């Protein structure tokens, strides 16, 4: 104990602006190591409880996505988000995100199919749009029974990415909430799900062509009988 002198409780805080991205990065790296290790466990141990493993994996992936959302939201708000538009084949973006979650499909026994027009190009920030596709895929992995189908279609001047699953579909109150959120009403309760939707919309809002803007959609129109998440790239 120091004698007599009044010590300041905290000498100096690291500046939040620097601390936040650094700690988010650190957490993302940790999670990536966790996921890699789970992969090794899955491949090497015969008697592993694959249901529990799949659960851990899903939650770790979700945490990773939430951190990405948090980080990009922060950068967006501070006008520090890197946005670099380029022409990308949509199929490349989709296949890469499907591949990024390959262990998730494996442990949960989900069959993923990517179909549609492989020659469709979109003018996008590839990394940001990929993060939205990833959210859609991880979401589908949660709600599907054992099938996910991603279709890439031409719509108007743009490209539509449809992610269908064969689960039970979304309950009405969730669809209602999503609709309200799109209509611009304030989210009454903020949870991870609304954060993810807000994030997707914010990212697609950046994507414009002439008078058109990007958008997302949520419905039970899945061709496989479950829920549907769609992304329109103008």
């Amino acid at each position, binding site marked *: 104990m120091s004698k007599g002198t009044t010590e300041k409780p905290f000498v100096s805080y690291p500046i939040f602006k620097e601390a936040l991205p650094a700690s988010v990065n650190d957490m993302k790296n940790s999670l*990536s190591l966790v996921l890699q290790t789970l992969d090794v466990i899955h491949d090497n141990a015969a008697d592993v409880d694959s249901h529990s493993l799949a659960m851990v994996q899903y939650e770790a992936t979700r945490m990773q996505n939430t951190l990405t959302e948090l980080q990009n939201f922060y950068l967006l708000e501070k006008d520090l988000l890197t946005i670099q538009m380029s022409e990308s084949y949509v199929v490349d973006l989709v*296949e*890469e995100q*499907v591949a*990024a979650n390959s262990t998730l*499909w494996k442990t949960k026994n989900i069959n993923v199919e990517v179909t*549609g027009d492989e020659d469709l190009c979109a003018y996008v920030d590839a990394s940001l749009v990929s993060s939205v596709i990833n959210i859609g895929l991880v979401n589908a992995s949660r709600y599907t029974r054992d099938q996910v189908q991603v279709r890439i279609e031409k719509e108007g001047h743009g490209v539509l990415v449809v992610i269908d699953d064969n689960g039970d579909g979304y309950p009405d109150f969730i669809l209602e909430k999503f609709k309200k959120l799109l209509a611009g009403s304030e989210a009454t309760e903020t949870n991870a799900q609304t954060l993810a939707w807000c994030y997707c919309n914010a990212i697609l809002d950046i994507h414009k062509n002439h008078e058109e803007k990007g958008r997302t959609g949520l419905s039970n129109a899945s061709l496989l009988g479950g829920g549907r998440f769609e992304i329109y790239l103008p």
Partner: protein
Amino acid sequence: MVESSFLARKTSQKSPYAKMHALVADEFENSRQSIRKMLVTLGVAHVDVMSTGKAVLEACRAKKYDLILCDFRLGGDKNGQQVLEELRESNSLKSDAIFVTISAETSRDVVMGIMESQPDEYLGKPFTQGVLEKRLHRLYSQSKALSKMKVLVSKGEYQTLVSLCKAHIDEEGRYSPWCKKALIDAYLALNRWQELEQLCNEELKIRDYDWAWLGLAKLSIAQKKWDEAIKHLEHVLQLFPQVIVAYDLLADCLKEKGKLNEAQDVLENALKISPRIHKRQRDMAVVSMENGDIQSALKASQHTLKLGMNSIHENPDDYIRLADVLSESVQSCENASEKKRMGNEALSTLGQVSKRYATDEKVKLRRTLAESRLYASQGSDSLRDKCLQSANKQMLENPSLEEPEIVLELGKSLYMAGKEDESQKLLSKLIDSRDIDPELRQLASDFLDEPVSTFDRAKAKDLNKTALESYAKRNYQEAVDIFKEALSFSSRHPGLNLNFVQSVLRLMEGSEKNARMVRECTEALSRLEHISVSHKQYKRYESLKNIVSQYEVK
């Protein structure tokens, strides 16, 4: 239609990458090994790993790699951006080599810096084996499909490039977007302006592509239609505020139009988005100095020097510039301890440049001259004169050092040492010499026009602007007064003196001759005896002199 088959793909298939030579560079051993393992699993047979930028540069000089995966953070002094810049500059990469910059950084400063060094791909960390596989497959297919065209680009054979690109676009090939951008560069190089304009306009009908607007802007620049270029560039930035090259081009166009303050604003905005670019910081240092904004010039000069270190851009000019800006700051600074700190920073900067270029006689001389200017600004006359003597000695011993660039710096040093006549004689001779670089001639002429501190120059410039406004409102008395005040900061400036004379003449119009006013005009004109026939104000000088002489005899 595609059926995603990645889950079924067996690694036992013969890998297309079997013959590839790959290089993996990362600061950390576990990262290096993990990426190496991924590549080996994908079938890449030869993978070299290393940890420092220096090792990457040496390896690339010794061996032509097909694939380089290089992290932004490396051991040693160089980062991934600097390594790529140097590899491109020294032509150490095969034209169809694939260079991927990997990084866990998310800060825009770093990401933009990496993007501006133009890697073939940017891969954010962490990534999985599956992602690397997809990315590699895409890059490999692209590299194979475009390899002929990339060779043509590197050889500058644009004629052939145009026909290959056109053929690919006609076939609706997968790399048509790449080909269209390549066509823009090719048309520019070949001066095929009509085709360029047509291509851009056709693309813009489909959508607002940044590269198509940039194509139109570059066309206007090639045609020296600055206003049109400025219009296009402002439009690009309105649509895509992060198209960084548009800022640089816009600043260049504004400089061409003489709008230096606006150019500085544009560069400032560019630096907010992407500050880690040597050339941009250097441009900022130069233009803010010309605008008399010492603080911005100081900041930009410091960044320029820092970014140059350990990179291909390192240059003695950056050290000398920083020392000069610091000397100027010393002059205009009121705070004694701040003055001292800046003086010390200038000395240490000059110490560094001698150390970095220890065997370079020219650098040694430039350093000595810059030191004399620093001492002059500190009022240390004896040290100042000692430096000048030493510089003289160096030049006597080695007459080949007397290059125009050095003469200009010597002229400045002499002026600051109070040897105005000597300086003027030297610089006038420099300006009149035939085979001098026009840019350097302009610099010498600008200095002779206004051999005052940046602070005074900025002050005079501001006042000149205000006075011109009064003149425009026909408030001639006010204009005369303000021009006079401006002259107290910069007495030799031709434009300023002539503006003053012109305002006085206006004031005397219709009224009686005023002997005092005429005398003031004569004095103003006598301050301009240094301007030569080639000076851009010479004609105006002659005609006003003519009018004043008529008043003198009246």
